[in-house]
């Protein structure tokens, strides 16, 4: 307990000294986030400085071991770091599929060489990753994927097409699911491989979203050479790893919806924009809708906390499907109600507008496995219905 208090004190001092003032304001739009990577153009000196300082301490990946450049913090310390960052409104120094998805999978399943090669650049924000899972014919039924990897001794030759690949056009490396054996059942012939997006035969084409942006792409793989040393875990055993990684992704997506909504609660926005009459929001129906959302958001935040505490005390839980389902549906509701709060102002078409965020939120319950798939998982795995 005392050690933790000491850690809190030191952390607070360090953040006070090292977090630039301009990095202590909430993100106004997703465009202000830092994703890193070879081709990253920092938006400001402060953004760069903040990333470098945090990466130096390993605090971009606080719980990863020091050996791989991480912060080496235990869960309690990581929680303290989060709290202290929140207390001064410090921005996340780095958003990264490397930290959220492939990193945890490498830590659990990767060879020592792969960990040494890939983890430190992820921590430093030098390499940006994308996720090559979905294909035109394999979405919810991901295990039906058709991208083929042919065995050529020390390497594979990969052919196929991926789709909805977020940030493929800006990423440096891809973690990709491929079929290495088509003779066996669909779950048994899948491998998870890693390759550089600059490898010959890899090309991307951005797809425009309803929100007007193009954060994801079609990715074409045409005779792409992948070294066997870049297979994560065993060949043909990729499905287990793919699912493990999805669990992390789901927790991230579920939790992020709330983190985004959380910095400014709906009721606070409503009070700022509409004012109070006799201590209450002027429109009773809107007030009631906001209240429903606020209470559910509070229950969800407490559930995230409880789940974390349970995992700390008892090991892994089976709650990522629930958090993904509820968190994303909650975020969609938030934006629907926000349209009511802001009226036609919310529907003005411009960059970083409420309209764009509202439209983007529709994808939350699709990406990383749809809500329906999450409910299937809960029904089958947790409730035992089949």
């Amino acid at each position, binding site marked *: 307990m005392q050690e933790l208090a000491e850690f809190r004190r030191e952390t607070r001092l360090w953040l006070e000294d090292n977090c630039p003032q301009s990095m202590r304001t909430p993100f106004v739009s997703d465009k202000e986030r830092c994703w890193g990577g070879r081709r990253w153009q920092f938006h400001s000196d402060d953004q760069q400085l903040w990333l470098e300082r945090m990466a130096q301490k390993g605090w971009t990946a606080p719980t990863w071991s020091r050996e791989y450049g991480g912060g080496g913090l235990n869960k309690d310390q990581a929680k303290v770091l989060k709290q202290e960052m929140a207390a001064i409104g410090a921005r996340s120094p780095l958003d990264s599929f490397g930290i959220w998805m492939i990193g945890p999978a490498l830590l659990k399943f990767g060879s020592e060489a792969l960990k040494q090669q890939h983890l430190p650049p992820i921590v430093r924000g030098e390499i940006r990753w994308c996720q090559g899972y979905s294909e035109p014919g394999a979405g919810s039924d991901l295990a039906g994927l058709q991208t083929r990897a042919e065995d050529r001794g020390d390497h594979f030759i990969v052919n196929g097409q991926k789709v909805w690949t977020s940030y493929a056009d800006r990423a440096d490396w891809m973690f990709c699911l491929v079929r290495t054996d088509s003779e066996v059942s669909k779950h048994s012939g899948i491998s998870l491989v890693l390759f550089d997006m600059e490898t010959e035969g890899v090309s991307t084409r951005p797809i425009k979203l309803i929100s007007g942006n193009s954060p994801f792409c079609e990715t074409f793989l045409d005779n792409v050479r992948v070294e066997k040393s870049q297979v994560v875990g065993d060949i043909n055993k990729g499905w287990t790893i793919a699912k493990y990684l999805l669990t992390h992704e789901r927790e991230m997506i579920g939790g992020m919806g709330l983190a985004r909504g959380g910095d400014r609660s709906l*009721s606070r926005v*409503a*009070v700022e924009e509409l004012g*109070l009459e006799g*201590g*209450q*929001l002027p429109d009773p129906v809107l*007030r*009631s809708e*906001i*209240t*429903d959302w*606020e*209470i*559910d958001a*509070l*229950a*969800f935040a*407490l*559930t995230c*906390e*409880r789940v974390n*505490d*349970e995992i*700390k*005390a008892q090991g892994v839980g089976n*709650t990522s499907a*629930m958090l993904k*389902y*509820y968190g994303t549906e909650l975020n969609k509701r938030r934006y629907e109600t926000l349209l009511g709060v802001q009226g036609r102002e919310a529907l003005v078409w411009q960059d970083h507008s409420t309209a764009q965020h509202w439209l983007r939120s529709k994808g939350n319950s699709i990406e990383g496995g749809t809500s*329906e798939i*999450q*409910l*299937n998982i*809960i*029904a*089958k795995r*947790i*409730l*035992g*219905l*089949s």
Partner: protein
Amino acid sequence: MALILNEEESMLRESAAAFLDEHAGPDLMRQLRDQEDELGYRPQLWQAMAELGWTGVLVPDDLGGLGFSHVGMGQIVEQIGRTLAASPLVSSAITATVLVLGGGSKDQKAQLLPRLAAGELTMALAVDEGPRHDPRATALKAEQDGDQVVLSGTKRFVEDGHFADQVIVLARSSGEAGQSDGLSLYLVDGDVLQRTAVPAVDSRRWGELQFDGVRIPGGQQLGQPGRALEVLEPALDVTRIYQCAELLGLSRECFDVTLRYLKERQQFGVPIGSFQALQHRAAILWTELELAQSLVLSGLKSLDQGDSPEQVSRLASAAKTKLSRVAQLATNEAIQMHGGIGMTDVLDMGLYLKRARVLEAQYGDQRYHASRFARLSGY
């Protein structure tokens, strides 16, 4: 404080579950109903609860109690919800105990708490006069007459009010109905009142209490005159959090029974639980129950941590709103997913459905608390 049970609390939960499975449950509830039991509970069960120490969980040990945690007591009450166990535990060992702890003088505490802790004394709280919860609407008059106070008016829907040894009554000592100032709490002997037992849909009873110029001696006031809400609201918030624990217990029981039925009942040659329409509804209900559980546990922890009354109130209203809704969903889905047999008295689902709505209505339903939550959040 982490949102998990410690070892003692887990043990208490298990032993409470085992005890209530043996000595209470829907069958006992049916007996009480079918025999039109005037009391609405079995004194032997109440006695046994007292012997287990449940009546003294919230009383400090120097006053004859155990001074154990709210989280611990919450586990007992959740099991009470699951097993429909009727007793004066909530009204006496929680609501009244917290009221005396919060507003009682030193003498009152010394006199009442050891007897409450031992389960020798039952006490009811008489707040409402109309069908919807509204303490401010209190019109029952308290007039000073020399040393004595004269009470006149009617209290309705008083939980356990038809038998309690003593009644704590909310009365208007000044001002007018609708105002929050001018309210006072008094301790009255149950025997001096005209009482009617009004049957409720859940086969329990409410007391309807007639105060026809009831004279009570001086010194029977609880807390400051004219400022009853300062004592009452925190005690009601504690009670509401426990109501949520009870609602959680009964909702989980409905869900568990329904889930079993989804696996057993066959139609079209397969278990009905293989239909995705029902799978998804079950998954949504399970998710809602998980959220509900987080609110209940946080509410209980908040009491143990001694959070500020404002924090507790806000959490209590959030929890009561959510738990009322989740209980509504759980009980309604339980009936629907059982089909025709769900409508029959053969199954226990009806008992849980009825109990859920009575619990919700007592001390503010989902609408009351949603609106209160908004007010407490500054909008």
